[in-house]
């Protein structure tokens, strides 16, 4: 369950950053991304997928969340 910092990059895309693993990549898809919830399975640029129980209301970025490997 690594803690992941999610922030926006210059182009407004979400960046997924795991300090411990030295991993930083753009988020390509989020399963649930509605005005009242955010989360589920998240896929990032290198092809790996991560899971978090949908959070409602959606968090404001940047923020640190705990993800599971999906």
């Amino acid at each position: 369950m690594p803690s992941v910092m999610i922030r926006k990059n210059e182009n407004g895309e979400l960046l997924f950053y795991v300090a411990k693993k030295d991993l930083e990549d753009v988020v390509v898809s989020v399963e649930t991304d509605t005005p009242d919830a955010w989360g589920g399975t998240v896929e990032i640029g290198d092809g790996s997928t991560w899971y978090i129980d949908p959070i409602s209301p959606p968090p404001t970025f940047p923020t640190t969340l705990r993800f599971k490997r999906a």
Partner: protein
Amino acid sequence: MPDLTREETQGLIEEVLEVYPEKAKKIREKHLTVNDHAIDQSKSCIKSNRKSVPGAMTIRGCAYAGSKGVVWGPIKDMIHISHGPVGCGQYSRAGRRNYYVGTTGVNTFGTMNFTSDFQEKDIVFGGDKKLAKLIDEIETLFPLNKGITVQSECPIGLIGDDIEAVSKAKGKEYEKTIVPVRCEGFRGVSQSLGHHIANDAVRDWALDKRDGDNSFETTPYDVAILGDYNIGGDAWASRILLEEMGLRVVAQWSGDGSISEMELTPKVKLNLLHCYRSMNYISRHMEEKYGIPWMEYNFFGPTKIEESLRKIAEFFDDTIKEGAERVIAKYKAEYQAVIDKYRPRLEGKKVMLYVGGLRPRHVIGAYEDLGMEVVGTGYEFAHNDDYDRTIKEMGDATLIYDDVTGYEFEEFVKKVKPDLIGSGIKEKYIFQKMGIPFRQMHSWDYSGPYHGYDGFAIFARDMDMTLNNPCWDKLTPPWKQAAGSEALAAE
């Protein structure tokens, strides 16, 4: 020497790896690569931030060096105790040339060495009492210090001293910021982890001290310079450009910085990050906690400065945007004269670099402004994200080496035959004796600043002075010179 093709460079890497035993070869080949613009994720071509191969001579430092030497050390009004045996602090004392203003020994302490000087009995019985006594002594002898950090050296972690407890108790007693830093040298693979630990210590012990306090008057143009260590005055040369364009620089981290600047940083509007490697952690933290955006910039060479000034101005209103244009216009004649003077003398020369956290990619632009070409570069302690950024900056089919060993570096140089090498003091004399012009790119070879427009003029002069120095023709003694030149000498 003509440019190497992709195949030749790959061949060179293989040739160099030849001498290693099977196992070492397998490890090292992942750290050497030929730059390929087609790749945008460095992970697929180079491995970094791994343990060095035992027996191979690495050029890296330790976590204590990353914390005491790099991040905390330059905070001038705090006293940084090198907690442990005397050597770690003494041999690195004042070597980094981070300039500051102040009276050393009275209100600033940058070039002094404070150590608990561990002896056998401290290892056996623990050093906490000694640390407490040391802090008392500091308070008596240097009452104007604004805080203390305890920088752990290897033995502290090994014997399990509780420096946090001592720091807390003494901090309360003297009502000062006393920061225990767990940066024992054996942690991690290089100084890089020391940066991270130091950033975390800033976050946990210093940054939030003035959170509830709004007495500081802010302006909409407040910025902080992060990751500029004021080597030879670098941060000053950067700061004047920012101020001229209308921004207010509240804090410098950490060259010529102070603890109160650090505490005020959460109140700025934008964090400007020069050395990404050593301070991205705290920038990310401030973005999350205080909503302060951060951006990377590059103040080496006019092309990059111009780009960066415009990018910085983007965060602000029109007055700052105009300010940026004004600054660029103001210095144009000045830097154009520098280029006109030195470019003809340096055009087409090839450079190989091997430095630390940001320079292997940041200075490329400055060399290109002078018509020079960087044909090989590498980092002592970079991570993947640094190489992601490097691939774009470097030419296609150039050499990239991570945590290069002394042997590999020498072999590469023999084959690539650069006109100039930029690296550290440990490499300097080897290459000079090989007859290759060399500049120290950590300490600017006792020169500097190199940042900003003012710095560029000095940078260009230094490169010319080194490269075109007449001494390089004199390295072969007369009796070994070819017959032709001998005849010439006899005339």
